[in-house]
């Protein structure tokens, strides 16, 4: 859909996003993973700098070590390679809810200034939506209880909005202090990784601020792709392009994925 973020580059925007997300994971972390780019990023990290990364899927597979990228959170390879397979009530109650998991990866159909996520409905009324989205799944509790959250989402003025139409999963609510008021024990979104760069919450207000852009992307492009008046960090960083090793590891994972027509 979106062209390569970096003109003339030999990698796609999806690849840049995936590599950027993989770099945010440290070896030995426990990671709650969703399908798509998050799963690709977590498996890329495991194949490169973080071999001891613990992958947890909401199907109840803990410590899954898939050799390729699963299409669903319940693919057989996840159960067959997991350290433990637990029931769905158990994965949410014993593992996610107490705050045992370091990082959760989430996507979004809409994202707002304070990192709140909508995956429920587009339109102003819930009962008669313009677009019915899939809904919450495990996201509200991942957003609430993982020690920190990384959001991976393509950026456009339609998806990056001043206020989400429906709060499916809470980022910083209406600003700092709301998470504590709502009883959300995790720290909230640490990074939002887009096809243009990276946003991070302002220390004081919790408002998402542009802190990094991919090589060749200007802050103005990122601001144009945002539906609110996006603040740009004084210390704006140009993020390193994917290395040859990162790209070849990611492409190798995709190449051995059965029936893969490429990532979505």
């Amino acid at each position, binding site marked *: 859909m979106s062209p390569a973020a970096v003109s003339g580059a030999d990698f796609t925007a999806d690849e840049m996003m995936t590599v950027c997300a993989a770099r945010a994971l440290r070896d030995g972390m426990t990671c709650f993973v969703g399908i798509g780019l998050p799963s690709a990023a977590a498996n890329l990290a495991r194949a490169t700098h973080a071999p001891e990364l613990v992958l947890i899927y909401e199907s109840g597979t803990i410590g899954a070590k898939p050799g390729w990228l699963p299409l669903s959170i319940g693919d057989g390879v996840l159960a067959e390679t997991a350290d433990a397979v637990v*029931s769905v009530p158990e994965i949410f109650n014993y593992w996610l809810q107490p705050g045992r998991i370091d990082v959760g990866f989430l996507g979004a159909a809409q994202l707002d200034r304070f990192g709140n996520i909508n995956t*429920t409905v587009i339109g102003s009324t819930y009962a008669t939506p*313009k677009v019915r989205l899939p809904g919450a799944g495990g996201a509200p*509790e991942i957003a609430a209880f993982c020690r920190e959250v990384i959001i991976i989402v393509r950026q456009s003025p339609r998806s990056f909005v001043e206020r989400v139409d429906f709060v499916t999963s809470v980022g910083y609510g209406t600003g700092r202090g709301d998470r504590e008021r709502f009883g959300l024990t995790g720290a909230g979104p640490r990074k939002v990784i887009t096809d243009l760069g990276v946003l991070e919450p302002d220390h004081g207000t919790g408002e998402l601020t542009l802190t990094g852009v991919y090589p060749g992307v200007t802050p103005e492009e990122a601001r144009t792709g945002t539906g609110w008046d996006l603040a740009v960090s004084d210390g704006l960083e140009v993020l390193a392009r994917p290395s040859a090793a990162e790209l070849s590891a990611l492409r190798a994972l995709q190449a051995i994925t059965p029936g893969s027509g490429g990532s979505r």
Partner: protein
Amino acid sequence: MARIVSLAEAVAATIHDGDSVAMEGFTHLIPFAAGHELIRQQRRDLTLVRMTPDVIYDQIIGAGCASRLIFSWGGNPGVGSLHRFRDAVENAWPGPLQLEEHSHAGMANRYAAGAAGLPFAVLRGYGGTGLESLPGLDGQPAVRPIICPFTGERLTAVAALTPDVAVIHAQQADRAGNVQFWGITGVQKEAVLGARRSIVTVEEIVEVLAPRAQAVVLPSWTVDYVAHVPGGAHPSYALGYSQRDNDYYVAWDAISRDRERFLSWLKTDASGGPAAAGLAGATAGEEG
């Protein structure tokens, strides 16, 4: 004691118009064959219950069997939208579909409360979300705050799920109707124990149910009907017996997107023919 009968007999005896029906299986062991039988028997006005409605409920909703849906995630996993579900919600086709929606954690706890014979379950969660203020099917709040009597902490209560019928697919049963399933076991144990009646379709009926690591066993007296339906989870899978048919999920996107194509699928595949054959043709047509 579970009775071993044909799938058609089990569905006819167990599922009636207006019932609430939970067909569970978390990506793995989804009871698709039972779903198609329910479509063939033209059940109406059902309240469907399921964490991830998936393609199975997309088919049942499109076939006009359901009036209400209780769920937590309604997508085609790894592919995109459930188009029949969306058409029902956005355009009331083939009829209106009333929703009650939760998070996965909420649904899982609701099933667990049903299995435990409790009226509700307690969890942390829903705080600050729009889900917190959505009504249930009865128009009353589906999620309510509760204060811990020991610590004073504010927590969230969700009502128990006790569906009329639970339908699941398992790898094995023995001739006495004891059931065993393994791999990703989801919320099926809770769904069966919390339901008034239950059907289990199985890949295989074995002489001796050999214990398996990390398996769930449902003793015969917790199940009403067992039906021998090899491949009954297709296009999902049964670990040790079959692979997930990812191409079917991808092909379903094009079939379900269009009402006419869906109706022709309904006439051919759901009315008796093997659904896989029709979809294989559809896939070829799509690519050709």
